[in-house]
């Protein structure tokens, strides 16, 4: 998810083509999209719905998460809330790109739509004054790799009927990768301890609602910590 960080162009070199910039992303998106398409079809979904999800939603972790949820027939509202939680981090990505995105509405809104973890990390490495068309091309290529992988996986999954237990652990693995990367970028260890403690409190209360309860407790903790630091300053 972070391979793109290694392609940072230095100002003295000629600009790297959009295709080359998205190559490391393609190496992750095609196989991971394939896994998504495969699991989706194996869970009983139609192949074109898997592709529709990759075109309309375009968010890896949320798409992996939706498979067991739709297989269990959970309500649309429940799945929307879970999507909100999984993708909340994206709110904070945009803040650092406010002045970097193009102003032409169509280009701007497509880039915002396509702002996945990987596209974000590629865009942040681009030098100042990169053309809008190149930024859009990067986002579109990245989504193309993701949709292509999904299509491949859906086709394979529709042919092969292997019922192998445990492949859905791909979601846990993906969350683990993202946790490690958030840990690498941390400014303190407190957010991790807060997560462990709030979950330990929330789970015995109600295993089914442990996630939402723990997030509410964590937000409250973050606000209290913020207020305490403010208090120290004044």
């Amino acid at each position, binding site marked *: 998810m972070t*391979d793109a960080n290694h392609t940072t162009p230095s100002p003295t070199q000629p600009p790297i083509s959009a295709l080359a910039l998205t190559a490391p992303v393609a*190496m*992750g998106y095609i*196989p991971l999209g394939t*896994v998504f398409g495969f699991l989706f079809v194996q869970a*009983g979904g*139609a192949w074109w719905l898997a592709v529709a*999800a990759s075109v*309309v*939603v*375009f968010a890896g972790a949320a798409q992996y998460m939706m498979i067991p949820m*739709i*297989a269990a027939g959970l309500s*649309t*509202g429940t799945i*929307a809330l879970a999507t*909100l939680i*999984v*993708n*909340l*981090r*994206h709110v*904070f*990505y*945009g*803040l650092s*790109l*406010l002045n970097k*995105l193009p102003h032409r509405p169509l280009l701007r809104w497509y880039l915002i*739509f396509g702002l996945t973890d990987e596209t974000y990390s590629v865009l942040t490495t681009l030098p100042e004054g990169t053309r809008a068309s190149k930024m859009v091309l990067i986002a579109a290529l990245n989504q193309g790799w993701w949709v292509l992988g999904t299509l491949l996986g859906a086709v394979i999954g529709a042919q092969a009927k292997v019922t*192998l*237990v*445990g*492949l*859905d*652990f791909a*979601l*846990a*693995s*993906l*969350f*683990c*990768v993202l*946790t*490690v990367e*958030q840990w*690498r970028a*941390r400014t303190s260890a*407190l*957010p*991790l301890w807060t*997560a*462990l403690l709030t*979950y330990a409190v929330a789970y015995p209360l109600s*295993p089914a609602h*442990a996630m939402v309860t723990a*997030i509410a407790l*964590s937000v409250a903790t973050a606000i209290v*910590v*913020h207020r305490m630091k403010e208090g120290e300053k004044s």
Partner: protein
Amino acid sequence: MMECRYILGVVAAMGVVTFGLRALPFVAGRWLAKHPLVHKLGAFLPLTIMTLLLLNTVVGAATEHSGGPWMEISAVAVVAVLQWFIRNALLSILLGTCLYAVLRNVMV
């Protein structure tokens, strides 16, 4: 076969929520950037939420069978170590998932 209209509804709802989150800073960015609490939450919450998602998924997987959580713990440890040192997301996810699938199919 899962119901088509239901899935289309879910996909549409997820699309709207995801796009809304990605668009929020561009619509309300000036307002958000002014508030120190937003920056604090931005530094704090992503690691917290990702840790909670990992915990919740692992606990969910471990309660699906009666073998104890050691398979989940081993697989997560492998993913974390690979990602920390080699930093190739695809490699970490594929090896961790394969190890888990092998453990689940052989051991239980």
